């Protein structure tokens, strides 16, 4: 089922904002033929250098409630992969499983496998700190640390053992510049973060996360609490960074997904429905459910 008319309207509105950069790492093969190479039953998993995060039949339970059902996916190391779906469909759980933040909840149980750089992470009891520092986390509400702006960005650096003041200062400035925040805060670096607007705080959180040089960024509805201008700035930042760092971007805003996605994954009620390359995913989805969701039949 094609959703051409809706798609066309959406896209012409989109083009008023900013044209999406057409960077592709694979050829633009027609959607259907790329699917033929995938076996319907087996998991489309390749533990290659291009896909550092790979899940294989992953299921997650909170106590007796199952939040994620048998998901097999691979997330490439560059580009933006958006994870979309109605609320409660397990997007956040999936994200939190990838860096094991879900462990904080009582009675959390995992089945299946999640491999990062080829290393299985689900069985590990040992320190997860290295793993987590490789996956930057950006949450829905900005959570600046209760310290000065400078110390926020420097926190991760200090964790990695960088103590020299001049080096810290250089790096902090570098990452603040990347996030287009330097000129707004350079005179209040030692001040509290409450002096910043919500959008600026989220950018600060991004700078803080980038400072530990993650390999991927996990973003959970990172712009839903922000005004449109801040949202746009963060989206642009993601686009700037995605050549270096892969992004897994969870969102419930379809328009945003269309804007920034290189790939998309659709989850429904904890199950993987469909995944594919944008814009083909949005223009001609394979599953009926996906098409209905994209058309706005439910949200």
């Amino acid at each position, binding site marked *: 089922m094609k959703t051409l008319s809706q798609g066309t309207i959406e896209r012409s509105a989109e083009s008023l904002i900013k044209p999406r950069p057409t960077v592709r790492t694979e050829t633009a093969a027609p959607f259907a033929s790329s699917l033929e190479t995938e076996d319907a039953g087996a998991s489309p998993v390749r533990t290659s*250098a291009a896909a*550092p995060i790979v899940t294989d039949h992953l299921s997650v339970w909170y106590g007796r409630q199952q939040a994620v059902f048998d998901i097999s996916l691979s997330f490439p*190391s560059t580009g933006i992969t958006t994870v979309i779906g109605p609320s409660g469909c397990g997007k956040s759980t999936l994200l939190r499983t990838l860096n094991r933040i879900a462990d904080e909840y009582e009675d959390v149980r995992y089945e299946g496998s999640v491999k990062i750089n080829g290393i299985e992470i689900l069985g590990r009891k040992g*320190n997860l700190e*290295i793993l987590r520092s490789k996956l930057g986390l950006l949450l829905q509400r900005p959570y600046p640390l209760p310290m000065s702006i400078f110390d926020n960005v420097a926190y991760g650096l200090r964790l*990695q053992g960088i103590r020299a003041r001049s080096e810290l200062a*250089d790096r902090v400035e570098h990452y603040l510049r990347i996030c287009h925040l330097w000129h707004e805060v350079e005179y209040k670096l030692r001040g509290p973060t409450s002096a910043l607007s919500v959008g600026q705080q989220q950018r600060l959180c991004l700078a803080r996360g980038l400072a530990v*040089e993650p390999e991927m960024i996990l973003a959970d509805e990172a712009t839903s609490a922000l005004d449109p201008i801040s949202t746009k700035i963060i989206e642009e930042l993601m686009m700037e960074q995605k050549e*270096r760092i892969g992004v897994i971007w969870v969102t419930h805003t379809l328009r945003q997904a269309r804007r920034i996605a290189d790939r998309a994954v659709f989850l429904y009620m904890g199950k993987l429905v469909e995944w594919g390359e944008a814009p083909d995913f949005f223009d001609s989805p394979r599953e009926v459910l996906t098409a209905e969701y994209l058309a706005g039949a439910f949200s």
Partner: protein
Amino acid sequence: MSTALPATQHNPAGAAPLSVSTSINCEKAQRSSVFGNLLRIAGASAAVLLALVQALLLTTLILKAAGSIIELGPIRLFFSLEWRPSRGEFGLASFAFGSLAVCVVALLLAVPIGILAATALTEYMPEGPRRILRSLIDLLSGIPSVVYGLWGVVTVVPVIRNLAPAGSGVTGYCVLAAGLVLAVMVLPIIIQLSCQALDAVPIGLREASLSLGAQKGHTVASVTLRRAMPGLGSAVLLAFARAAGETMTVAMVAGSVAQIPRGLLDPVYPLPALIANTYGELLSVPSYEGAVMTAALLLIVFEALFIVISSLILKRWEARLCVQ
């Protein structure tokens, strides 16, 4: 200065294996997690220690009390009114009754006044004075029991003595005095907790009632207070627990006469006062200690029972009241 940075740990073509600097971090992470584990073990030990102390406290009291229950027989120990340690007669009935009487008086006085005062603070008072008064009451809740006892001796007892008919033998040290002083002591607690309970009532409920045309007073009485009942109930509970356990205050103003009071103006000897006052004499008479420990146990049991039963009732109440 800002753009020239050392090479990043990964390259865009794909994920590289963990590089050298990360392995250094690995070591650092190991070291700090050793510290973390140590701290966690220390913390768990602290928690276990506290639990053990509590368990030890209970068992010791139970054992000592059991000794005297067996020796004196439960009926005589719990229900006899005679307390003559030198003769080996230990009856806790009058003390238990004294405790109960004083608590009841205290709660009868403190609960209505406290809840109404909390209502004034949360529903009627404007923001500025409200904050000042609530801070004031919070401050006053830290005043220790001796100071209340002193106030009782200096102010309350003489007033009662003067108001009583001359020649009636009323000293002023009585149930009323103790109840009154205890009431004032638990008032700040009741007000604090009631304010919290009232604050927790969703604004939407009040708005709904008012928009139906109800007057403010009616809204407060029928809707807000009713919705806050479980919270208010637990405020009362905590106040009761505090009042029942208070030692100094009642020791100073209750009169320390082991009898069942015939009226509010009679002296009485609540359980905590008994335990405190017999300090120093406990070693001289055999079985004295056991009997006093039984008193202590009785105190705990009463409190625990009351709290448990009331919590159950409160839970049922809450289930019936709250629609959501």
